[in-house]
């Protein structure tokens, strides 16, 4: 409840930080603005006393108990997307140990699912969650299924194409992964 009231007062333009975000929101769009405002509302938050909340309430004119329409929806969605900043930060070693990257092991021959992020002529640039994206040729069969946003199945060969050439001390990297296109999982066109 406190958080919602805080956010409503900020949206009324009472604080200097949100004043400049209001200008930027035209360029950025409401989504990013909300993300920024979310983090700042948690940052500036010292636990406020009841009297302060009452003061805010009276100025902004927001009812305490019953919320309807926008207020109700806002409350629902702010709780869903709120980041638990009070929880302790998960350690990197733990995150890494339980990551898909570790689970994968040797990438050679592993089947993964990727998303087509770019189509340039006959080439599909597919992102499967690794450091680099892989580039595959668009197959002739079911050509129109392979568009930007389609999910495809890949058989990985290498996560990064980098080899040492004769006489060199360091490897040269192509900044690309190597994978074979197996099939399609989901297209935006067909259900």
């Amino acid at each position, binding site marked *: 409840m406190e958080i919602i009231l805080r956010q409503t007062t900020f949206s009324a333009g*009472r*604080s*200097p*930080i949100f004043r*400049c*975000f209001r200008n*930027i929101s035209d*360029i*950025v769009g409401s989504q*990013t603005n909300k993300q*920024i405002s979310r*983090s*700042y509302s*948690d*940052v*500036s938050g*010292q636990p*406020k*006393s009841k*009297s*302060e909340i009452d*003061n805010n309430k009276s100025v902004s004119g927001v009812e305490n108990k019953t919320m309807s329409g926008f207020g109700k929806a806002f409350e629902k969605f702010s709780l869903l997307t709120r*980041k638990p*900043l009070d929880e302790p*930060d*998960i*350690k*990197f070693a733990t*995150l*890494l140990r339980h*990551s898909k*990257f*570790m689970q994968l*092991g*040797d*990438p050679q021959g592993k089947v993964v699912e990727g998303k087509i992020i770019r189509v340039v002529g006959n080439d599909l640039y597919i992102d499967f*969650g*690794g*450091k*680099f994206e892989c580039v595959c040729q668009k197959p002739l069969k079911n050509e129109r299924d392979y568009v930007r946003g389609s999910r495809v199945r890949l058989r990985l060969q290498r*996560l*990064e194409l*980098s*080899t*040492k050439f004769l006489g060199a001390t*360091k*490897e*040269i*990297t192509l*900044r690309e992964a190597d994978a074979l296109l197996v099939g399609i999982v989901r297209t935006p066109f067909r259900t």
Partner: protein
Amino acid sequence: MEYEAAVKGPLKLKGTANKDIQKKLKKKNKEKNAASLKVDQLADIKESELKEISDPLKFPDYFGVRKLFRIKDLFDARIHYGHKDGTLDPNMKPYIFGSRLGHLIFDLDKTAEMLQDALNFTAHIAYRGGIILFVSHCPQHTLTVENAAKQAGEYAHAREWDFHIFTNSEKVYNGVTRLPDLVILLSTLNPQMQEHTAVKDAAKMCIPTIGIVDSNSNPNLITYPIPGNDDSPAAVQLYCNLFRDAILLGKSKKPVEVY
């Protein structure tokens, strides 16, 4: 005392700051009903608030940049992925967590610390009205970098670098030019896998640099290197967002005329 104040809440908005003072006064008045004490308390509070406002350099994290990201955010943006063993620059060894079947992993604990320093520095530069230049030569990320600079109200150079921009600026621009006060490199390599000219030139012109150094880059000439992935679009997007937020945080506070 000042450090405690910073930890508790350095980001005090104008409206709420007054309310906090009022709250403190109310509490103290409830305990002791003395009219004479009121004035002293008010003076004490105002003095500490003034100290906070007048010297942001005394605080380790005046703008609260540490709260802009968590290690999970860095992890989700694939910042811990490095290149392979064969392309490792020996100067990057201290920042590597380990190697998984030839693929290098960055130690995000170290990255987080260095990222916090860099963001804090950026916020301070923005606070003092410095010019910040985002530099990147990767064609994939040109749009991301330029948008971030636009949103932050700062400048970007995400195209091919003209060699004499910094070192011979008077000839290039036909007049006395003000060079940037900070250069943020989203990638310290150019598409030919060689060190970006901006690194060397900024060092020559005594301009501090912040740079994202991948496992194949050399961090030596960069003032605030941030070891991490510079190739994935998700990673670059995160860096751009963080720098933009840090700049906006710095600009949101009104600097007090000290000189």
